[in-house]
């Protein structure tokens, strides 16, 4: 029988939404954050001294592979992996089999998500049928069924005219349209970032320009249509510059970067001797790109850091580098990667909690009567990334690296979903 009140005692409370940053106590009851006066009944005390207490994280695009490819992940394992990574909300990508491209599929998935024991799962609906980039799905009905965003997942819609119409059509429904910026023709048969490393080790490259064309296209169409465009997976220096200029001129566009891209560079492909966990889309970029993207998150040009969780198993990864499927896990390492790269915990909380929640119209906040989605973090801890993972995936390119920061406990809707008092 869980206690009625959770008392987070003596932690450093970091709540960018309210501007709070100081040592204090937090009480949780009935799924909400409450004042001390409203706390009561049996109490679970979590000693948070020396720890940071922050709003729980939101991820905007994890592939949970359910239905269809549940050997990689399912709703339950993905939810638990999220909880272990400090995420209280995960927006599931529509790239499942069958694709989440109908109101029925959205409603069914949300129904099945009711029983998960970790992070809350929301879903984004596919912009086009079967992610074919050609035939528009029933966007409005999917939003009515509960989709919090629209997206073609990792597929980039190449036809600008159709994308423009999709944005025009989606705008009145008020949800963000999440686009992966990329020109698939230019990406071609590339398997890693095109640069000195790809030239050295004989792998075909994906030029940064392939992403930058997509970013420019997304910005231009956001300007044209006024739709809420979110550019997922922005990873190059020029992309950051394009966004900075666009935002300065008033275009309402938001963007995110995968946490691992703040840490790793294309040198990881060489240093790991063609380890297929480093085969990613977008690929790991140059050091210059990585540094620009870090600066972009620090100054708010890039709004969000995501886990970019694409779990795979040996079936997809124990193959020749060019034949391995792109993608890596990320839910359980995103926070540590972000903290290691950015250093400042407030910046990390803004990028992992506050802004991604805002993209889907939520508020990540620790004020009284807020939904009790809270994470307790040890920002002094050093950890070597290693399994076992809660995710079913085996592809973690950060494996073996030493990162700062550790999630101590995660609380969603007032329940401890990860940590010493969980369950």
């Amino acid at each position, binding site marked *: 029988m869980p206690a009625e009140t959770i008392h987070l005692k003596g932690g450093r409370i970091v709540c960018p939404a309210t501007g709070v940053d100081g040592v204090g106590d937090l009480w949780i009851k009935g799924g909400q954050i409450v004042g001390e006066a409203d706390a009561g009944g049996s109490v679970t005390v979590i000693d948070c001294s020396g720890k940071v207490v922050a709003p729980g994280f939101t991820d905007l695009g994890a592939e949970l592979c359910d239905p269809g490819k549940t050997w990689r992940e399912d709703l339950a394992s993905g939810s638990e992996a999220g909880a272990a990574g400090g995420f209280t909300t995960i927006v599931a990508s529509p790239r499942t089999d069958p694709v989440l491209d109908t109101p029925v599929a959205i409603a069914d998935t949300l129904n099945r998500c009711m029983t998960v024991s970790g992070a809350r799962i929301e879903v984004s609906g596919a912009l086009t049928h079967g992610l074919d980039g050609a035939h528009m799905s029933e966007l409005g009905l999917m939003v009515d069924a509960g989709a919090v965003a629209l997206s073609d997942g990792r597929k980039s819609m190449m036809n600008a005219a159709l994308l423009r119409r999709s944005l025009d059509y989606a705008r009145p429904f008020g949800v963000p349209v999440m686009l992966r910026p990329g020109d698939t023709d230019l990406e071609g048969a590339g398997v890693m970032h095109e640069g000195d490393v790809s030239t050295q080790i004989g792998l075909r490259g994906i030029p940064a320009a392939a992403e930058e064309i997509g970013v420019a296209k997304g910005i231009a169409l956001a300007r044209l249509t006024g739709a809420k465009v979110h550019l997922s997976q922005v990873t190059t220096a020029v992309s950051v510059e394009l966004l900075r200029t666009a935002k300065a001129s008033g275009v309402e566009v938001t963007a995110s970067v995968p946490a691992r891209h703040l840490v790793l560079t294309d040198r990881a492909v060489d240093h790991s*001797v063609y380890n297929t966990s480093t085969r990613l889309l977008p690929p790991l970029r140059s050091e210059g790109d990585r540094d620009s993207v870090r600066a972009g998150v620090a100054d708010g040009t890039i709004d969000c850091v995501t886990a970019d969780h694409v779990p795979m198993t040996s079936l997809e990864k124990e193959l020749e580098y060019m034949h391995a499927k792109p993608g890596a896990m990320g839910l359980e390492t995103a926070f540590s990667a972000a903290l290691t790269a950015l250093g400042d915990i407030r910046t990390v909380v803004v990028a992992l909690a506050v802004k991604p929640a805002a993209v889907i119209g939520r508020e990540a906040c620790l004020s009284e009567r807020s939904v009790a989605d809270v994470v307790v973090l040890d920002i002094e801890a050093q950890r070597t990334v290693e399994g076992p993972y809660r995710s079913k995936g085996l592809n973690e390119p950060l494996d073996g690296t030493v990162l700062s920061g550790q999630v101590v406990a995660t609380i969603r809707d007032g329940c401890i979903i990860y940590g010493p008092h969980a369950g």
Partner: protein
Amino acid sequence: MNRKDLLGLRDLSKDEITEILDTAERFRNVSERKIKKVPTLRGRTVVTFFMENSTRTRMSFDLAAKRLSADTLGFSASSSATKKGETLMDTARNIDAMKPDAIIIRHSAAGSPHMLAKEFPWSVLNAGDGINEHPSQALLDMLTMRDHLGDLDGKTVAIVGDVYHSRVARSNIFGLKTMGAKVIVAGPGTMCPPSMAHLGVEVRHSIDEVLDEADVIMMLRIQRERLQPGMMSSVNEYSRFYGLDLERLRRARPDVLVMHPGPINRGVEMAPEVADGERSVIMEQVTNGVAVRMALLYLLLGGEPMGGDDHAS
């Protein structure tokens, strides 16, 4: 040489390359004898595992192993279980279970030999992986150059053709740079993009710009069967800018060496009279290939000491 595998020339030192070439020189005369066999690798098993077509490289490795008395076993794409859906790793696990000593692998995916080398105890020899490396070819090229030019330090080698997509070129560039040679590459913009400079070479866009400087002109094969759309306009235009004919050869240094890894497209990258002419050392390359591969197998498998003149001198 204290290595299990030969994956590429990128990580070989000058001393290691010199040791391989010196050893190859000593093995060369085995192929000149009436009894072309030494007992060096008697009882050892060498598997040739070719997932891409090959005639010369495969025959050369096979002969090298046989002339060292190793037992050889061939395995090719057409006969292999991959056609039935088996992964490379599973195929390799099955070969492993039969206890080989070395595997010579050619594969269309860069990094495949590295994947096997990490996982298995036997020696892996890269016989070409995607567009990455073809180290034994570059070593035989360097042995041929050394035969004629002596020390490669300070020499200038021009590589002409589709350099970007050539594993032969990439291995030669790594090896030649390590040995102190200067490398110039020439080819159309699509085949010699500016990024080639990352490899420490000079990039030119006409064969005429390399003729008076080069001690060696290495012509690459235009792989017409593999060209992606937009890589070049026509064979005719390519030939005009990059083909080596007699007129161009006359403008080259008189003692220039003309090389080609084969198979030649006569009349495309090289005129027949050049390929068969007196500056051409193309057939010496092939002969040296067997010696270099004998040296590699010997050095990696740690065969019996050669025992002086009885075995090779």
